[in-house]
């Protein structure tokens, strides 16, 4: 059984809150335990609404979401479900509760009534994973955006989740903060076998995932490995998205006769070294 199963899911906001059209429109997909999936899409493509449907913050209009076998509409098991799937949101300032870092991280475990000793252990461990232990007594407003987001990850981690959804968690950060976050995400997925759902509009971030789902107008437009998805350059452009620059360069070159005469450039290349290697081959090849 897949860890996350979304079946025929639809949702639209009531008319008084920007209710234009359907936010999520008959979406179905499954996510296996321990995988790293990126969800791409431009602003307003329904990806953030999808995040809130995954842990029962929003209730589907149609279809269902199962997290490890628990339905998000099952009110008796909602806490159990939310312990399994945590969300880190976009704005670093709007998701920390306490004015002391370690007490903020303790917030989740306190809510589910863990014994004080266990909470302290989990807080310590979670802060270690995100490398924020030296700031345990700091006040959030003295931290950088990237540090605040790492505290937010620790707050989710302390609940011992199996899956973490990052809802554009890097969008408001500077390049350094983004790199820090991506490093933490990589560790969560590689070393702590946490299932990661990364919602983003940065291609470089999506390229790090095992699988990329592209959303448009509330529906899934593309679904595949980064290489497969980035092969669809024209489609991505049409959906208001970019492709990594190396993909774009090879795409531009392969449309030219002079290049076609020499070699067939593969599609969907997004790694620098790979792209450089292919360009060298292009220069060596004779028409």
């Amino acid at each position, binding site marked *: 059984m897949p860890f996350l199963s979304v079946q025929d899911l639809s949702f639209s906001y009531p008319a008084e809150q920007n209710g234009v059209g359907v936010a999520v429109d008959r979406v179905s997909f499954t996510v296996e335990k321990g995988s790293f999936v990126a969800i791409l899409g431009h602003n307003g493509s329904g990806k953030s609404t999808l995040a*809130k449907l995954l*842990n029962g*913050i929003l209730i589907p209009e149609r279809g269902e979401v199962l997290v490890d076998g628990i339905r998000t509409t099952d009110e008796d098991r909602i*806490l159990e479900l*939310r*312990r399994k799937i*945590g*969300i880190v*949101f976009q*704005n670093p*300032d*709007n*998701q*920390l*509760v*306490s*004015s*002391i870092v*370690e*007490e903020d991280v*303790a*917030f*989740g*475990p*306190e*809510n*589910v*009534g*863990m*014994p*004080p000793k266990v*909470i*302290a252990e989990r*807080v310590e461990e979670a802060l270690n994973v995100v490398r924020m232990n030296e700031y345990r007594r700091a*006040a*959030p*407003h003295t931290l950088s955006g990237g540090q605040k987001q790492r505290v*937010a990850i620790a*707050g*989710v981690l302390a*609940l011992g989740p199996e899956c973490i959804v990052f809802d554009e968690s890097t969008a408001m950060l500077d390049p350094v903060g983004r790199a820090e976050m991506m490093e933490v995400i990589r560790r969560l997925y590689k070393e702590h076998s946490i299932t990661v759902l990364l919602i983003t509009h940065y291609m470089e971030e999506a390229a790090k995932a095992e699988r990329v789902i592209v959303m448009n107008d509330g529906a899934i437009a593309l679904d595949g490995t980064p290489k497969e998805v980035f092969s669809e350059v024209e489609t991505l452009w049409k959906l208001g998205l970019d492709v990594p620059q190396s993909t774009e360069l090879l795409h531009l070159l392969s449309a030219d006769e002079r290049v076609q005469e020499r070699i067939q450039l593969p599609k969907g290349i997004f790694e620098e070294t790979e792209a450089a290697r292919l360009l060298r081959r292009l220069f060596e090849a004779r028409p």
Partner: protein
Amino acid sequence: MLKDVTLGQYFPGQSPLHRLDPRAKILGTILYIVLVFFARSFPAYAALLAALIVLCAVSGISLKLILKGLKPVVFIAAFTAIVNLFWTAGEGAPLVEFWIVRIYPEGIYSAIFMLLRILSLVIGTSVLLTYTTTPMDLTDALERLLKPLKFIGVPVHEFAMMMTIALRFVPTLVEETQKIMNAQKARGADFESGNLIRRVKSLIPVLIPLFISSFRRADDLAIAMECRCYHGGKGRTRMKELHLRFGDVLFLFSFAAFGVLLYFSTPFFASMGFYIK
């Protein structure tokens, strides 16, 4: 920068007073306030002041900071002292008499006492409580002390949660206010000139965005809290346990003993003529 402003007047430190259980400090402060009002003789005051000096010394907070904290009450203290000085009628002959002013010895006494009372009240509560306890610890301690009120329907947990969130967001909102003011200034807004009505009106472009962003923050935070399994105070535990340790008990006990001693010694001192009304 505005963002460095922290709420409350906490001065970080490692003194025994800093380390006391915040509940003990709250109870101690209440006791202290009662004592200040009960003390009605010179020796009692002398003892109280001695206790206060010991507390200040133990807290490790510099005299300069303590005196600085008195600034806001200087006016009230001086005013009260002057009123007492001139308006206390004595039994004997006045010491000074000219025009309508009559100063009796009793007036001088009560002026000094009023002054001492106000100053010791302010210094005592700040050294015992606000200077040495973080606002977070205070909130925590209040929540625990008021817990019994839950049974008569007082939303103690909700109140404490509100305090916690307010403490967390004050610096954020202060910073945001500054940012919006700068943004409107850059668009030619003028907050500095004109009469009062104009100035108040000029704040509208600051207040509306501030309200809207606060609502948005509140919305975001509520969702984030829900995602982290928040469902009210039911079944909630705390990471930080407050344990009354030997030191806390000793502190409270000695404070109480001191109080009892003062109380019972009052008639004795009074009989010796030290009593003041």
